């Protein structure tokens, strides 16, 4: 038991944060596809919230305007639920985003093979490396998803205000908007973690002898 190497959780977070800070541009590239996909998700959902707010007033005027705007509504509908079409587009964009994250993270692992090898020579276990990559991805996920959610939600509200006037903002259920934003943030974090899973595994399995390699 005494022959155990350790990496305290607080220290892992510290290292992960520093790593994101120092490689800010690289982190930005990794996070950008997530920001965009989550912005799209939150734009669609907050847009639905706005439409629901307007429909709930019961004015036929809003009904007509929403149908003009492209919402699939049948007469008598009092709610806009995300249509299959909408759902598929969102799912597709999230899939593309995950592939983007995997690609960017794999490149990050390749760039850092020497660092990972060195850490292993200093005594790091596979799971330290795994944890560092997951923490980094988690932090990137939270920050990126938050940015994306606010961006998309803000854009949805702004465009609703421009299109339908103050009523759109007045009638919207803020609880609903908050739920949509929360959902987008959680989805973003999960996607970021899914995206880093394979690259982190590659990194963790790297042999310490890699640190000795010298490119000619």
């Amino acid at each position, binding site marked *: 038991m005494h*022959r*155990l*190497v*350790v*990496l*305290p959780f607080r*220290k892992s977070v510290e*290292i992960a944060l*520093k*790593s994101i*800070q*120092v*490689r800010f541009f690289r982190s930005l590239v990794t996070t950008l596809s997530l920001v965009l996909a989550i912005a799209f998700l939150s734009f669609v959902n907050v847009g639905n919230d706005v439409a629901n707010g307007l429909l709930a007033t019961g004015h036929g005027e809003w009904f007509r305007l929403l149908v003009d705007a492209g919402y699939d509504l049948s007469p008598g509908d009092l709610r806009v639920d995300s249509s299959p079409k909408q759902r598929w587009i969102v799912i597709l964009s999230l899939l593309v985003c995950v592939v983007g994250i995997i690609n960017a993270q794999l490149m990050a692992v390749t760039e850092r093979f*020497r*660092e990972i*090898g*060195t*850490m*292993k*020579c*200093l*005594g*790091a*276990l*596979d799971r*330290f490396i795994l944890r560092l990559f997951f923490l980094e991805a988690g932090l990137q996920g939270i920050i990126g998803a938050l940015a994306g959610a606010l961006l998309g939600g803000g854009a949805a509200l702004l465009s609703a205000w421009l299109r339908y006037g103050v009523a759109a903002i007045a009638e919207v259920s803020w609880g609903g908007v908050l739920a949509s934003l929360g959902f987008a943030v959680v989805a973003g974090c999960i996607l970021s973690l899914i995206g880093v899973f394979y690259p982190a595994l590659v990194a963790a399995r790297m*042999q*310490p*002898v890699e*640190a*000795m390699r*010298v490119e000619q």
Partner: protein
Amino acid sequence: MTTDSHIVRVAGVTKSFQLGKLTVDALKGIDLEISAGEYISIMGPSGSGKSTLFNMIGGLDKPTAGKVYIDEVDVSQLDAYELAWLRCRKIGYIFQTFNIIQVMTALENVTLPMTFAGIGGDEAVDRGMALLETVGLADRFQHKPFELSGGQQQRVAVARALANDPAIILADEPTGNLDLTTGEEIIALLKELSSDRQVTVISATHDFKMLNVSDRVVWIRDGRVDKIENRDELSISIGEIGTRG
């Protein structure tokens, strides 16, 4: 630790690699005993199996046959946790390419192995600073690697290798990426540490500057130990090398 104890013992080690259908024997039966506190240089041309042997001694690679004992423990019997512990506490690595972790300052690089060893906070900082002082970089503890010269980075690496008071320092071509003077400084530093702290220094090198400070030089050729020379026999062979050209 008695003086005649062997910190590293290599017994009948062979290593073969599979390259497609071809089997390449990198090591063809090596026996080597290294005593605690010795300064050993492993010399040999590229492709001689020098690096393979070196990695074996460092517990970074496992032999195809034969045994490697570090501090009388058979390395091949260790699981992943014990190997990590060995790398963390018993062995300090120094690399040709320095391998300072780019995102960390000099001090953080030195304290990282201590963190792995369960030493944290002020104690790690104090010890880290003391080590940086030993290598003459105390005033640069907050510098990032890219703010340090090659020689300074290698000094940080030496301090990092000493972080957990290892029994062995493994230096892979430590002067390979340094100019002549800086290389000499690093060699002098390693020699000083080896005699002051009784650390066993094992280095794989092409660098003939290393020969002056080595207690023994192991010449590897074609996967076998060609010869092992003690320091007193060395001046002659350096002359030979000089004339050979």
